[in-house]
Every structure is written in structure tokens, then in C-alpha cells.
């Protein structure tokens, strides 16, 4: 198993390298650049800005510079203040000297902010998206899994239709519709909850429910389908035959085996939820990471595009690795070599 994980992680490096090259090529292939504005900059100013950010170099040189800043760790001398902290994502003082700081992973400046770097964005905005994403995932699983199980066990009864009705509703109503409606009804008309912002538990309910509900619908449907298949297996009949209680059969045998497709769906879902949702974050004014994925593309904010895509790719690979590990626990017949 350890060997498997090590091998998967080394593959990840190759995947990230390929992703970074493709992203880099594509983002430079679209017209315009970070300084293409409604009012074009005079040539002299534009040239100065391009020199400042190294955009006057050839594309291969720019790529190599970017990757070097990202990969190669450095040790610097000097006090670690907020200004220098923003130059690298990882900064920690070395134990044998007061002044030496080990620093790694510079994701570069944001072209759309004069004070902040991509490192700052990761440090300050990503955690908020991760909070929202994790809470939404927990909500989605807590709601979707029981709905799917009940629907499968009570197939073609009211419970099934009701559960799947909710699921269909969740899948078909996009967040961009449901979020403003929830906001208007619960926040404006009823005044029960704050509409936007992030921090207080009361501010978290609406975005978590909105984001989690649409995902729970997916989980419920997959769970139901998978449960139905497993319920017909021979070992379920055996379990019943040897006198196990219904609850033991369902939880210990049916559900555990039925979880494999569910886990497969949840893995990547988690990666996407943690990195943030543009729509939910915009509508609920959550200063998370999701906005940057979209805004950076339209603004040609190159280093933010690279950083956010690499982040997402890393999380997707990690999540899939976790899913593979989970398979082995769910179904001991699965072996890794």
C-alpha cells in the first residue's frame, strides 16, 4: 500500500508538470494580456510594466522563470515581516539562526492587485473556500447518503419518490437560481439569516446549504442506484439467511459494498468544493478562492490562472488517490501493486 501511494504521488508530479505546460500555452494563446484595458496603455508605460513582471521575455523563458520561482526553495536573511512573507507561500525561520528563513513556492504577483501576490491569495482566501467546501461536503453526504439508502430500501414507495424527487430538484435547479431565491426568501423576506459575508456561523448556513444541497442530490442518486445493485447480490441473501438483523445487513454488507461508486463521486467533488465555487462565493459575498478562478481568466491574470489551476490539479490527484485507498478498505478484494 505504501509503495502504491508513493508511486501515485510521483505520478502526480508528472501530471502537474503537464498541466502547467498546457495551461501556460493556452492562457498565452488567447488574445490580450493582463494590461489590456478598456483604455489602452501608452507604449512606454506598457513596456515598463512588462519589464517589471518579466513579460517581455520569450514564452519558454517566462515558463522557466515561473517554474524556478515555484520549485526552487531559497534561504534568505532578514526579519520575516508581512511584506516579505507575501513573496513565498511557505516561510519558516530556521532553528540555528535568528535571521535565516527557509522559503519555498513563489506563485508570483497578481497583476490585478498592486499589494497582493498569489501566495497571499492562497494564504488568506483559500482557507475560506476550504471551510465552505468542507462544510458543504459534510452537509451533502449527511443528506444525500441517507436519502439514497432509504430510497433504495423502500424502492417504489412514497419514501423513494419523495427522496428522488428532492434529488432531481437539487440536480436540476442550478445554484445561480437557488442561491438568490434562498437569499431573498430567508434573508430579505423572513429576515432569519444574514444574506452575505463569512465568519459568523449564521452567515455560513445559506451558502453551505445551497452548495451542499445540489451536491447531495448527486450523492443520493448514485447511492440509490448502487444500493439497488448490491441488494440483489448473493451475499446479501446469505447475510439474511444466517440470521443477521436487518440493520447489520444494510450497514455492514449492503452499504459498505455500495459505497464504492459513491466514494468515486465524492473524491473529485471534494477537490472542487474546497477550491471554491465562483457562483456561491459571488452571490454570498464570501472572500474565497472561487472568484479568482473566473476573474483571473477574463483579466488574463497569468500567475493567478497558473496558481489556481495547479492547486485544483493537485487536489484532484490527491482526492483520487484517497479514493483508491478507500476502495481497499471498502472491498478487501481490491489489491494494489
Amino acid at each position, binding site marked *: 500500500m505504501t509503495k502504491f501511494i508513493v508511486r501515485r504521488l510521483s505520478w502526480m508530479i508528472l501530471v502537474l508538470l503537464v498541466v502547467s505546460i498546457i495551461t501556460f500555452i493556452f492562457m498565452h494563446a488567447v*488574445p490580450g494580456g493582463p494590461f489590456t484595458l478598456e483604455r*489602452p496603455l501608452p507604449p512606454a508605460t506598457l513596456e*515598463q510594466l512588462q519589464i517589471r513582471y518579466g513579460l517581455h521575455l520569450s514564452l519558454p523563458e517566462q515558463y522557466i522563470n515561473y517554474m524556478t520561482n515555484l520549485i526552487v526553495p531559497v534561504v534568505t536573511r532578514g526579519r520575516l515581516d508581512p511584506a516579505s512573507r507575501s513573496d513565498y507561500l511557505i516561510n519558516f525561520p530556521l532553528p540555528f539562526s535568528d535571521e535565516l528563513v527557509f522559503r519555498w513556492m513563489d506563485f508570483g504577483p497578481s497583476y490585478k492587485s498592486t499589494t497582493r501576490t498569489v501566495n497571499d491569495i492562497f494564504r488568506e482566501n483559500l482557507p475560506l473556500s476550504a471551510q465552505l467546501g468542507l462544510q458543504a461536503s459534510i452537509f451533502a453526504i449527511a443528506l444525500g447518503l441517507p436519502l439514497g439508502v432509504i430510497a433504495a430500501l423502500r424502492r417504489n414507495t412514497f419514501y423513494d419518490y419523495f427522496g428522488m424527487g428532492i434529488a432531481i430538484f437539487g440536480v436540476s435547479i442550478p445554484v445561480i437560481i437557488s442561491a438568490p431565491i434562498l*437569499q431573498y426568501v430567508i434573508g*430579505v423576506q423572513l429576515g432569519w439569516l444574514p444574506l452575505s459575508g463569512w465568519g459568523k456561523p*449564521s452567515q455560513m448556513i445559506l451558502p453551505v446549504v445551497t452548495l451542499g444541497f445540489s451536491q447531495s442530490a448527486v450523492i443520493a442518486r448514485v447511492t440509490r442506484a448502487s444500493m439497488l445493485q448490491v441488494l440483489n447480490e448473493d451475499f446479501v441473501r446469505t447475510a439474511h439467511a444466517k440470521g443477521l438483523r436487518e440493520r447489520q445487513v444494510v450497514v455492514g454488507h449492503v452499504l459498505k459494498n455500495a459505497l464504492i461508486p459513491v466514494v468515486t463521486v465524492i473524491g473529485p467533488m471534494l477537490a472542487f468544493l474546497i477550491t471554491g465555487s465562483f457562483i456561491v462565493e459571488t*452571490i454570498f*459575498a464570501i472572500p474565497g478562492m472561487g472568484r479568482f478562478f473566473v476573474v483571473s481568466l*477574463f483579466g488574463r491574470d497569468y500567475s493567478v490562472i497558473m496558481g489556481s489551476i495547479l492547486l485544483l490539479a493537485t487536489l484532484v490527484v490527491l482526492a483520487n488517490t484517497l479514493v483508491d485507498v478507500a476502495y481497499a478498505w471498502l472491498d478487501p478484494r481490491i489489491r494494489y501493486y
Partner: protein
Amino acid sequence: MHSKNLWYVTLIVLLIALTTGLTQAQDDATIQLSGGPGDPQSIDPQQGINMRDWYLLNLLFPGLVSLDEESNQLEPGFVSSWEVSEDGLTTTFHLLEGIPWVRYNAETGEVEQVMDDMGNPRIVTAHDVVYGFRRALHPETGTFSAFMLAPLVAGGEAFNAGESDGSDLGVQAIDDFTFSVTAPISVGYALPLYSLMSARPSPAWAIEEFGNRWIEPENIQTFGPYALKDWVHEDSMTFVRNPHWPGSDGYAQARAAEIVFRFLDQGVSLREYEAGNLDTVSVPTDQIPRLKADPELSQELTLSPGACSFVLGFHTNKAPFDNVHIRRAFSYAIDRELFVDTVLQGAGIPARWITPPSIYLAPTPETDPDVGIAYDPMKADEELAAGLDSLGLASVDELPPITVYFRDSENENTRAQFFQVIWEDELGIRVELAPQDVTTYWSRAIEDAGPIHFAGWCPDYNDANNFLRDQYLSGGQYNYGKYASAAFDDLVNAAQAESDADTRRELYRQAENQIVVDDAAIVPISWGVVPTLTKLNLTRTFVPSSLQAFWKWEKTSE
């Protein structure tokens, strides 16, 4: 089942959270506003780029002079008076003496004066103004608006292009409180330009010490009616009244104790307003019918004149728009009244020329009923026939395919579809629509604009020159349609050099006629109107440009 327990836990958490959410109070002394989604680019005077950066930093760094929104008269900013030399080239400003540089101290909760290394309070001097001008024009600063300021400072263009070291730059601190600036040419709109955002005094010592991060709340030093209290990136910005600001005609002492700008999307802003959490918001046009129908909200709705114009541009070198008759036909065919009523839901004024009437020296519908172009189906048909005739074509079917370029947004798609229908109805010409993402659109507009492209303009400074000469002079960088007319150039150049306001107004009147009627290179569509909702307990003013005079705003308890 375990998941059942999870359910209960979730429910309990929800209930607890619900009760905590109900204990929210509103503060009377704080004005709550929406500042649009996402962080501003910068509140560094020399780094700000868009209107939002500008209205935020305008609270912190007043200009030399400012324009009163009602009287359209120039008023002193942080100066007591100014005089212009007889040749019109040199302007000398006398600064208010003793304005302190301040910062917000988070520990004491007070706005306090900044001390220098010797322990003396730092005050705003002419040297700070010189520093601001120099930094704005220095090529390495990369100041976006430098190209507007540079032609009005002697030696400015060479310095900005990196061709000189700036030792001969026409800015000077005569003494600590006297600042003079010399222009290579005399123009009638120099004062507003010397008050451009990038020409604001800036604290050299703080910029040197903190680098790019000098605008963070813990580092920034300012002197205007408000000081920066807090900036939660991507979330909000809080400004607090600066008691040390002496006040001037242009920038009064602040009334509200605090102003909070939350970075909200327009849809959320409106809902937050309706929930009572924002004091005033601008409204999306599609909401206007609902708001007008609502007995309460309709009382709070204001439609105030804006400063922006919406026009269509033709590429005057691209067939068939290299033909003036075809251009006129397309322009006469558009019913601007219908456009404003349907597409804009009344939030606009049908435009007959380019410069909005709220702009200094622009023609106005009352004084100039004959200027410009308007919907005229008869003339549209005549011009189309004349155009086809001169091109030697038998019918509109022989015209080359025509594509309209615009930015891909809900607003602009609706507008484009309107024009598509109108032109098909009036002229029998079916145009293709080509929405593009915003950066692609602008990079294409600059390099190779489409045969018809959407254009709009919001002023950089309040003078008709900014709408006409800055945009459409032959070879100008915003002249996307490659419009080149000696007659137009002569008019706007003469107006630029003229100092008499009435003569300038007449020249701009003629220039407008030249570009929208005689040459029909630009199709004026509408002038902006800003729909705003304002709570009845907020007293506020409406400035046509978004550079609001927030320091005049005040909230009273009901």
C-alpha cells in the same frame, strides 16, 4: 444508523447558528455601501486604474481643485487659492498650511498625526505635491493616466517616455506651501487635469519604507476627509473620519463617522439593501419596473444623470462603412427613444451627440435643439439609397456581411439584439452578432476594431475635450474606428487652445455635428442615467461621475 445522528447534530448546529444570526444591530453613525465585487486594483494615487479605485482614494488624497457637482465651478481642494500666469502656461497654487498626514491607530482606535524621525508632525507640503507629480510621470511607476497629465507638464512627455531624467520637469515647490506647474501649451482644461488622481500628493517616506504594501491599513498615511481604518481583502474597506482634516470648499469635513464599502455583486447589493443592511445602492436596469411598482421602494428610487455615454463606432476603413451614406443610414435608422424605453427601462437619455450634457462645455438639449442626429426613417432610406448608388450596388443583398462586436454580457447582448432587429426592420440589412470576452474585445478593438463596435466613455476629467479630442483626434489611441477628419481635428484643436468658455462651447458644438452628422463616424445612442435606491434617512448628493462627495453624506436616525 450513524447518519441519523449526524442529521441531529447538523440540525442542532443550524438552530444555534440561527439564533446567533438574529442578534444584529445597525449603527447609525456608519454608512454602509456596496463597492462592487472583488478588491479594488489599488488605492495608491499613482497606481489606481478604474473609477472605483479613484472614488476610494479620493477620500484619502484630495486634489488641488475639485469641481462642484451642482454649480460646475472649480473649488479649492487642499489649496487656499491659485493663479494662472498671463501667458496661461504656469499655474501657482497656495496650499492650506498645516494639514497633517495621518494614520489610523488600531490600538487606540483614533486617527493620529504622523511624526517624522525628529518627532515633529508631518504636514502636507508643496514637496509632497511635486513628489506625486514626479512619481506619476516616472516611466517605471507605470501610471495608467500619466499620458493625460504628461502633455500638460513641461518636459512631461519626454520624462514619461524615459527619454529624459526629469530634471527639467515643469513642477516646482517655490516654498513649503507654494506649488507651481508649467505647461508647454495653454489649454482651457488644465486645472481639472492637475487634479487627476495620479497627481495627488503622496507620502514619499512611507512609499520608500513599505514598497507596494504601503497602501495596507497598517502602513498607509493620508490627509483627506477620511482615513483608512480597515481593508479585508476581497471583502470590505472601512473609512473613518479624519478629525485633523481642516475642510475646504471642495472637500468639506466629513459628516459620517464611518463609511464601509462591502465588495458585493450588484444582485446581492440590492438584496442587502432590501434587507436593510445597505444605505444606498445602484440598481440593475432590469429591476427598475419592479422597484417602480413597489409602493415603498419607488419612494427611494432616484434616476440621476450620469457622466458616461454609450455610442456605436464604425470602422471607417472597412466596407461598407468606408461610405459615409451607409454610415448615416445606420445612424438615422436607430430609434433612441425606443432603445431607452425598452432596453434601458428608462435609465438613460436618448443621445443626439457624444458628450453627455452633464459634462462641462457640452451642448445641452435645451440650448442646442438643432445639434446632432436623431431617428429619422425617411433620411435613413434616402441615405441608404444614396450609399448603394455610390457603391454601384442594386440592393442591400449585395453588401458585404456586417458583424457587430461587443462584450459578452447580458446587458450588451440585449442591446446588440435590439440593433439587429432595428436595422433589419428599417434597412432590411441583417447583421451578425459577435460577443467576445472582455479582454479579447479590448485587445481586438485596439488592434483591429470590428466594422461596427460598441463603445462607451466615462470621463477622466470633466471637460468636453475628454470626450472629443482625447478620443477621436486622427491617429488617437482610442480612435478604434480610425476616424480621420481634418475638419474635426481643426475644431477640437482650436477648442483646446482657446481659453474663452463660450467660444470653446461653440467649437465643441460644431465638432459634435461634424463627427455624428457630417461624417457619421460615431452613432450616439444614450447618455447614462444612474438608477439608485437610497434609504430615506440618508442625506446624500449625486455626482454624475461616480466620484461621489461622500464627505457630504449623513445618516440620521429615524
